[in-house]
């Protein structure tokens, strides 16, 4: 359709394009601009550059069309034009381009009557304006709506003319404009205006005064000094609204930059003389800094005295200033003297200042190393941290020595930190060497260093200290032990453990054993285990040994109370998923209540950390959910499920969306599951997903919920309208299911009546054995299979199943046995291979690839995919059947049926099924119905390729058996039939997205605008709010601009619509979803002019191509067929 962009241009053309141009030329420029606008905003830089080049080469006519389209902010029609202007402004790089654009903007500025639009063009001149704009901008300095933008643009242009314009404009303006102009003079440093702005420094208006003082300061003319000084004096060098003191400081800064040293000295001294109050410290510091910069020698003495003027912080700031001049020999001497006599607290600051000023090894030798032995603690600390900043290992001995001499905690911490900064491999050795002889506190610090550096080479040194007489040393040694232990230390550690009775130290040794575990450890541990159970139990969760769990379980159930406690701890710490079912059993055991809570949390965390596939993780979380007692437990399970990214997990957490206590956690989990992840995993799609996301939108709470809502809405907006998984079991009754009547071959031979009768009998029997309980389909006793009432062809399926002891069942696909389900204990029939296999296959594999069954009584999840005759099965997330042909059991000479029911097999044992979802895959090629074939229809699109089509095959792609247009790529969006048609019946289905816009061109040529050169039958989501004010001839189905259609027969967005377009000569009839929405004669309808008052040369064409005319939105088409009536 031709709405916003193009209608607008037509309208403009009527008014503005000079009549001198030939009609042909007008169309060309207009069309090109329209094409460009339709592609904006450009998808990428290359496209943007290409469009920019196209537009700029259209010359002033093209630019005029664009600037004329700009509307005041907030007018929707103007948006593409603002994108075009932005493109011109930002993408122009050469002088020539900028000149063209500048001219266009100046012209637009002249023409526009809207203040906001004018300001907008002026604003754009900031980037592309040149001296040429100055004369025009001058006129806006007096305009209250755009003076600010105009002056900003003049500053950006920055030529002599613009400077002069600014200066000349200064008198006779409103005060706000004057402030802005004075600011501009300062920014441009336009000296000729100095006198003029100086007069404002004595103005009563604070804003004018402040701005002029500031600009005078920026102009940095020596003659301004007295005036600025006087103003600062007037406010006693304080902070005040005129900021006179700040202006003087800025003036000083400018003079420093200019190098006017004499004046800098003078100003600085004036500042120093007048800022004796503590509240003026910062001005004073500025003065000192400037002075120190221009005359470092002379300032030295001042700084020494100045240091102690105010408070402690000021002292430090003065020292920072002194740093710049403290590198000379003279300075060194002076400051060293000061250092000696300074208060203890200040010495360290002076030392640091000198260290910064003299960053060389000579200074380290002369000052810093000796300072490590100072009596003054802050000095020692400063020296150590300054030495460390050299990051040179040659200072290791000195720092180590310092550490050995240190006694208090601060210094030890600092010495440690300093050593860790200069450390290398040799440091570890030096440290280890000193441990033996060090005092206990220092020993502790050294042990900590070895631990921090994981010095496994010095295990022996650390181990030896575990026997120290000093308890703090022992503690530190034990603490360090895990960090320095390696596999070779295992037997020593075990010996230590055997001999150790204290619990804390046992823990440390156990931790060390754990950190030293390697492939040789298990035998060593097993050897000792019988005699040292309680001591070794804590280690077992970390040992890679198949028998370890058994030992722990035995201790838990059969050991004494203390052994049981230790064993339970071990179960909680288990490092893989092996212990999860033990924890579950504990949780279920009523006599073990005291362990219940911890068992549940350990169960959840071990399940989360396990290497199980997601399906299995979810099964385990679902297994424990009924046992959860309170909100905390349930919330933890829901959160864990939020990390298991499967469709079933989403369905699981969505059960709790309406539970007041759990809804927020469930919503967050659902969001996490459904939306794309930050590491690029795609989001979930389909109707169920959409329903859940829409349902939970208002259930999120907490700080980030407003952002999360934006995320969800954005995702929903872009979510494709695919069906996805649909539940084929409603959880309440067996609707959608029926009894089994023999087999597909036998059924096909029955008459309708016989089949109906047998079906009724079979359905009656279903009630005897099949029932629905707690959201499950349950089978008990003897009976036949349960079948879906409708057939399925290609699909993906998810189903959870559970069997009892000796259980036997299966899933029939297309009415055919079967994906096997059985109790693996039934080795007599070969069930040890596991479930999931295509049991009745004779040629292809019939057994699963691996055994992946959960124990009988637990749930299992099947994912089954069937495409054509091939089946893939995952059991509990593990691939068990890999793309194997399902053989036809009922007649082995036939291939598998194309479509048949899915059946749940009954085989005499108790069964349960839940979560039955099917996603149908439209992978079958589309075929004409028998009826249409007979009527002479031709298939234009087979669901697979675009063979019968020409035109834009980049934006139009085949997807899910449909033609989809994604206008994000290059191209202009038309796809035509390969043949031309005159009279025809054209049938197709289409699916719209929100606000989508497309069109069906008929009788169209391949060149030019099909809506006018041919005819366009509108395709549009005319229910969208943006189209509330459509003209009647723009409704869906209308012959665009010519005959209006009836509105109100489109299906909701996302559903497929059926449409037929019948054309014979000038007669046209459009039928949408069974209702005729348009019927008429196109020639007659336009006899007295078209409804849109535009020229439609296409009305005179009675033959041409049929095509989809893309207008920038996502639309899908399928089932496209045609009957050529001209034949």
């Amino acid at each position, binding site marked *: 359709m031709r709405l916003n962009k193009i209608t607008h241009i037509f309208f403009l053309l009527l008014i503005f394009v000079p009549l001198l141009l030939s009609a042909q030329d007008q169309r060309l420029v207009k069309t090109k601009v329209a094409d460009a606008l339709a592609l*904006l*905003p*450009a*998808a*990428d*830089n290359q496209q943007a*550059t290409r469009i920019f080049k196209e537009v700029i080469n259209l010359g002033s006519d093209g630019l005029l069309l664009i600037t004329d389209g700009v509307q005041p*902010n*907030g007018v929707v029609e103007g*948006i593409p034009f*603002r*994108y075009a*202007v932005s493109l011109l*402004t*930002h*993408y122009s*790089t050469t002088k020539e381009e900028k000149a063209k654009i500048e001219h266009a903007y100046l012209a637009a500025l002249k023409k526009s009557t809207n203040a*906001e639009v004018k*300001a907008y063009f002026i604003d754009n001149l*900031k*980037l592309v304006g040149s001296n040429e704009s100055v004369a025009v901008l001058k006129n806006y300095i007096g305009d209250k709506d755009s003076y*600010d933008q105009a002056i*900003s643009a003049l500053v*950006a242009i920055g030529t002599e003319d613009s400077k002069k314009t600014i200066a000349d404009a200064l008198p006779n303006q409103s005060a706000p404009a004057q*402030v*802005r102009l004075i*600011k501009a003079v300062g920014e441009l440093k336009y000296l000729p205006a100095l006198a003029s702005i100086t007069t404002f420094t004595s103005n009563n208006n604070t804003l004018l005064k402040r*701005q002029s003082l500031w600009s005078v300061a920026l102009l940095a003319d020596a003659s301004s000094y007295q005036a600025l000084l006087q103003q600062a004096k007037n406010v006693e060098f304080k*902070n005040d609204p005129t900021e006179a003191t700040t202006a003087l*400081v800025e003036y000083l*800064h400018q003079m420093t930059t200019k190098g006017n040293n004499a004046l800098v000295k003078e100003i600085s001294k004036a500042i120093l003389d007048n800022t004796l109050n503590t*509240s003026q*410290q*910062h001005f004073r510091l*500025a003065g000192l800094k400037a002075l120190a910069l221009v005359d470092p020698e002379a300032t030295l003495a001042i700084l020494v005295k100045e240091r102690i003027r*105010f408070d*402690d*912080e000021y002292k*430090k700031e003065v020292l*920072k200033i002194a740093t710049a001049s403290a590198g000379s020999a003279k300075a060194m001497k002076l400051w060293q003297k000061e250092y000696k006599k300074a208060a203890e*607290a200040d010495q360290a600051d002076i030392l640091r200042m000198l260290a910064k000023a003299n960053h060389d090894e000579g200074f380290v030798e002369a000052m810093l190393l000796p300072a490590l032995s100072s009596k003054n*603690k*802050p000095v020692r600390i400063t020296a150590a*941290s300054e030495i460390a900043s050299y*990051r040179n290992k040659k200072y290791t001995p000195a720092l180590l020595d310092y550490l050995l001499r240190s006694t208090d905690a*601060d210094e030890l911490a*600092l010495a440690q*930190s300093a050593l*860790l*900064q200069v450390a*290398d491999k040799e440091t570890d050795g030096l440290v280890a060497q000193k441990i033996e002889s060090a005092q206990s506190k220092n020993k502790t610090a050294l042990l900590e260093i070895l631990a921090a*550096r*994981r*010095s496994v080479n010095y295990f022996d040194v650390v181990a030896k200290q575990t026997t120290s007489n000093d308890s703090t040393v022992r503690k530190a040694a034990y603490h360090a032990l895990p*960090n320095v232990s390696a596999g070779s230390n295992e037997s020593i550690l075990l010996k230590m453990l055997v001999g150790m009775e204290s619990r804390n130290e046992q823990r440390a040794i156990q931790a060390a054993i754990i950190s030293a575990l390697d492939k040789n450890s298990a035998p060593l541990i097993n050897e000792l285990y019988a005699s040292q159970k309680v001591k070794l139990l804590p280690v077992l969760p970390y040992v890679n040994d198949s028998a370890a769990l058994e030992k722990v379980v035995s201790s838990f159930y059969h050991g004494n109370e203390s052994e049981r406690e230790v064993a339970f701890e071990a179960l909680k710490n288990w490092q893989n998923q092996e212990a999860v079912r033990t924890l579950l059993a504990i949780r279920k055991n009523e006599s073990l209540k005291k362990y219940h809570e911890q068992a549940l949390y350990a169960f959840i965390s071990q399940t989360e950390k396990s290497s199980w596939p997601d399906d299995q993780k979810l099964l385990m979380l679902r297994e424990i959910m009924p046992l959860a007692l309170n909100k905390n437990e349930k919330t933890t399970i829901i959160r864990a499920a939020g990390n298991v990214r499967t469709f079933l997990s989403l369905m699981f957490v969505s059960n709790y969306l309406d539970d007041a206590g759990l809804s927020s956690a469930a919503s967050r989990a659902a969001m996490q599951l459904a939306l794309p992840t*930050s*590491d*690029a995993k795609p989001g979930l799609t389909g109707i169920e997903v959409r329903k859940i996301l829409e349902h939970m939108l208002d259930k999120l709470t907490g700080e980030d919920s407003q*952002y999360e809502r934006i*995320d969800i809405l954005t995702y929903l907006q872009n979510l494709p309208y695919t069906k996805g998984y649909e539940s084929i079991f409603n959880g309440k009754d067996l609707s959608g299911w029926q009894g089994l009547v023999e087999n597909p071959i036998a059924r096909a031979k029955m008459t309708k009546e016989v089949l109906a009768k047998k079906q009724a009998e079979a359905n009656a029997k279903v009630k005897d054995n099949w029932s629905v309980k707690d959201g499950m389909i349950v089978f008990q006793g003897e009976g036949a299979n349960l079948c879906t009432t409708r057939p399925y062809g290609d699909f993906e399926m998810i189903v959870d199943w559970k069997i009892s002891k000796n259980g036997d069942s299966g899933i029939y696909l297309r009415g055919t046995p079967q994906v096997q389900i059985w109790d693996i204990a039934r080795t007599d029939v070969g069930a040890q291979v596991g479930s999931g296999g295509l049991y009745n296959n004779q040629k292809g594999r019939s057994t699963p690839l691996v055994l992946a069954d959960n124990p009988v009584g637990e749930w299992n999840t099947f994912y089954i995919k069937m495409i054509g005759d091939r089946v893939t099965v995952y059991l509990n997330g593990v691939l068990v059947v890999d793309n194997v042909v399902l053989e036809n059991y009922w007649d082995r000479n036939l291939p598998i049926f194309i479509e048949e029911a899915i059946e749940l097999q009954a085989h005499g044992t108790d069964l349960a099924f839940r979560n039955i979802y099917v996603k149908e895959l439209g992978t079958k090629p589309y075929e004409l119905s028998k009826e249409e074939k007979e009527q002479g229809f031709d298939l234009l699109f087979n669901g697979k390729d675009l063979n019968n089509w020409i035109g834009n095959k980049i934006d139009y792609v085949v997807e899910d058996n449909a033609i989809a247009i994604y206008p994000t790529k290059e191209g202009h969006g038309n796809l035509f039939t390969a043949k031309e048609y005159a009279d025809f019946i054209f049938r197709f289905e289409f699916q719209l997205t929100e606000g989508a816009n497309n069109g069906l061109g008929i009788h169209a040529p391949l060149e030019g605008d099909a809506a006018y050169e041919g005819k366009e039958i509108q395709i549009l989501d005319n229910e969208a709010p943006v189209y509330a004010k459509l003209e009647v001839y723009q409704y869906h189905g209308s012959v665009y601009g010519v005959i209006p259609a009836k509105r109100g027969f489109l299906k909701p967005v996302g559903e497929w619509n059926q449409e037929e377009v019948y054309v014979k000569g000038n007669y046209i009839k459009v039928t949408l979803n069974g209702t005729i929405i348009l019927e008429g004669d196109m020639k007659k309808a336009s006899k007295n002019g078209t409804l849109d008052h535009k020229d439609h040369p296409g009305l005179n064409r009675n033959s041409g191509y049929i095509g989809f005319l893309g207008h920038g939105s996502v639309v899908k088409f399928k089932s496209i067929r045609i009957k050529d009536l001209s034949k």
Partner: protein
Amino acid sequence: MKKEKNINATHQSRRDFIKKSALAIGAFAIVPRHVLGGPGFMAPSDMLTKAIIGVGGMGRGHIEYEGTKVLAMCDVDKNHLKDAIALAGGNVRGYSDFRELLTQPDIDVVHIATPPHWHGIMSVMAAQAGKDVWCEKPMTKTIGEGKRVVEAMEQYGRMFRLNTWFRFKDNFYGMGTTVKPLKKVVDSGILGWPLKVTISGVTGFNWKFYWVGKTDLKPMPVPPELDYDMWLGPAQYKPYNPHRVHSTFRGYWDYDGGGLGDMGQHYIDPVQYFLGKDNTSPIRVDVDCPQQHDDAVGTWRRIEFTYADGCKIILDGENKDANVPYIEGPNGKIFRGFKSDIPNILKVIDTLPDPEPQMTVFSDSVRSRKKFGLNELNGFRSATIVNMGKIALQLGRSLDFDPVKQEFINDEAANRLINQPMRGPWKI
């Protein structure tokens, strides 16, 4: 301007107080407080006093902070101000004009939690008033403003902290560790040189592309509680629409730069730190993005920064490379969750020397006058990267940059965006 304060406190200068108590602090004055007794070791009378400007969103989270006591708050939205004062327990003075707040002698530190188009001006004015500054990220909206903040802090001897913190604490997004081990391994040279750092969803970073603006904002009446003219301040006048202000302002170039503005400095600053680039900037920026609207910020696909020595920072908005390492050097890679192709990398790192400790408590920095770990100098450099990216997005082209002159090479339009004009009387 209307005052909104309740005058009950005697405005004794904090610095006077500190001067008097300097003796009591005595010999320990230079020792960082955390060495003395850990965080929390501070008498109430020893706390720095603070004022917060902008208490709508970010500012409210910072009422409680180690070593500081909030005396005053300022906001241009009366409702925000009222709510925040109530949240702080009521005993706080309220201002609607920050300039008035800056004249209060009893405030040591000004905390700037406004939208970014105010950060530069307020930082400079606070320095000119003799206050130390705590400023939210991104540091400034333009490169030019950043330069000025650096200059003003130096001129007036003020302390500045930029409020992002990953260069010195907390686990750093997808890495699952602090930046310290990254710094150690990069410093050690184990990975080789130059390094390529990729910041994407794959490596654990979220570019928050919901911070996009709308292109069809209709003018609407300004609500009575809001001083819209003051909210806009230096930004050019545009008709009011609620989407411009408060929680959605990041979607507009006039005030910020979308997800890049919001998260860019958060993510990039630690990279500057561990690459050792705190004194320099990249020499080139390349962008891949859809064309941007000139008012509303849009999304982008990729922004790539290159340093003179060949190091690169890649912002991958599309999470294009599903297996990309966070840091990649010629001799080794570090992936999300600190996984690496270097065996036992965490143990190896433990044996490497530590980086220089950083000043991590702002009140310590104010007291000792030692620069805070993330200050105006390194903060300016990491903000410059964000601002280079924003300019390249708006211009849709690659740009060359001179890190010494801090201007673009041969691109006049880009250079016109370094200093953006300020409306009315606002200057920096």
